[in-house]
């Protein structure tokens, strides 16, 4: 796959087939990658309108991964801590509540990737607090029938970095957005509990929250800002409708750009980032020489 065309064809094929069965897109994980940490998967079955629900992934932290090789670096940032116990919204996906298909929605909060800087990052502050931010738009969604795996594709609209360590010097503002404009990124979600009793399309016709200890009051208090639009009553048993299912589960997720990564381009970007300071220095001394003459 060298561009959007084959992926677009796949997406169109899936759309035309009407998704009689749940279908994964078959996204393959690549690097660089952001792993989302301590995640909660929240679905509001009528968040947008009577036919369209909204899937949200909420995280307490995120980790930027350079790659899998020995010596590759990672950087983790947290969205909560002392004085701030709330997690952040990482991405949203609009879903047709009748069949689980992705919906292209005009709603401004739908189908957005919004991985922000961690709490410790203070922009334009002289202190050395590294952080990263990826933004973009989601354009396809897939899932397996029992709700244990989901995937999606997305297009990056911006990537920004603050005080990145030398080991991650290739991450500079806009480098991925510019270089990968012709490609789509991927998103993968794993949900160990799955849909259980409400297997298949029916799962998209009720509200639910998956994550570690999601059925505990302590976690529900931390997630409160994201639960206000869900049905107020908790389901009991889980097959009830008109209520919210809170289910303990291990939810993992990561995002990556592009599909696939042109390795040579990434190496080139890394080399460029290393060379840039020297170019500046040479330019500076040339200007100084010109001024002297």
């Amino acid at each position: 796959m060298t561009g959007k065309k084959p992926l677009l064809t796949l997406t169109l094929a899936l759309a035309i087939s009407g998704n009689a069965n749940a279908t994964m897109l078959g996204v393959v994980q690549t690097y660089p990658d952001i792993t989302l940490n301590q995640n909660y998967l929240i679905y509001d079955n009528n968040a947008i309108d009577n036919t369209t629900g909204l899937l949200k992934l909420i995280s307490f932290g995120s980790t930027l991964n350079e790659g899998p090789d020995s010596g590759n670096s990672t950087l983790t940032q947290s969205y909560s801590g002392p004085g701030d116990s709330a997690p952040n919204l990482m991405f949203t996906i609009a879903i047709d509540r009748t069949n689980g298909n992705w919906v292209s929605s005009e709603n401004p909060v739908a189908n957005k990737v919004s991985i922000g800087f961690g709490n410790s990052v203070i922009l334009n502050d002289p202190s050395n607090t590294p952080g990263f931010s990826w933004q973009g738009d989601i354009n396809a969604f897939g899932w397996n029938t029992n709700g244990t795996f989901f995937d999606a594709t997305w297009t990056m609209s911006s990537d920004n970095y603050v005080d990145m360590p030398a080991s991650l010097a290739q991450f500079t503002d806009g480098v991925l957005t510019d270089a990968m404009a012709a490609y789509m990124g991927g998103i993968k979600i794993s949900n160990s509990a799955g849909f259980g009793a409400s297997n298949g399309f029916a799962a998209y016709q009720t509200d639910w929250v998956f994550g570690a200890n999601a059925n505990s009051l302590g976690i529900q208090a931390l997630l409160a800002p994201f639960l206000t639009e869900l049905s107020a009553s908790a389901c009991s048993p889980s097959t009830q409708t008109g209520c919210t299912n809170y289910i303990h589960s291990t939810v993992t997720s990561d995002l990556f750009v592009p599909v696939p990564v042109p390795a040579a381009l990434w190496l080139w970007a890394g080399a460029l980032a290393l060379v840039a300071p020297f170019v500046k220095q040479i330019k500076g001394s040339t200007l100084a020489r010109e001024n002297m003459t």
Partner: protein
Amino acid sequence: MTLQRLIALLTITAGIGLAPNSASATLIGLSPFLPTIDFSGSGNINYEASRGIVSVTAVPSILFSVDPFISIEIQNAVDNAPKSLLIQFQVDNSGNLISSSSSVPDLILIGSVDTDGDNLVDHSGTLLSAKVTQFGFLDSANGDDRFDLRLDSIGGSLAYLYSDHNLASLVISEISSSYTNTFNGSFDVDWQGQAKGVIGLIPIESVSPVPVTPSFWLWAGALASFFPGVKFVKHRSNNFPD
């Protein structure tokens, strides 16, 4: 004759006790509870068939707990040892865990944490250590594999968060462009894949007696009914020598 049979009986009983435990062609079904430690997608899971060694190496990222509330990044140890997670254990060629009698932990997590948010390191070095007691795996049709582990003998400076419980770890290995020789359900050949996941708390499994197979009970029953006959023949031989 009686002594020989007794030895045979003891040998069989010992064999049952020492047999590989926790045979699991599927997941155990563990989902770690809080407090949890996440490890990120730069990790990998590797299997070396010649020695039957499964290794998970990764970088731990976040320690999270509700009561007390802790949500912090795991940092390198104060002696500059890089933050790291290693889980290593042995299986047979069907993927059954082979318990190790060694005192060396199967899981070692190194790093440092500031659990009370006062910008001072509270724990550094080995944060967690444990022994694997159960191993499950699932070779998913979509290529994203899962592995789950139960661990006990918890040590390290964060062991207090898991007192009176076991540890569980769920490892996700996604289909990745960086790995071409991933798990396909077999432990006869080497394989390697991407790994990320979570370590957390799980209730201690209720201890049940060592399961004894029905065939063993049948064999033991037959032996018991055979003993009087042996005694009778022996007695008659002694009384009526040829």
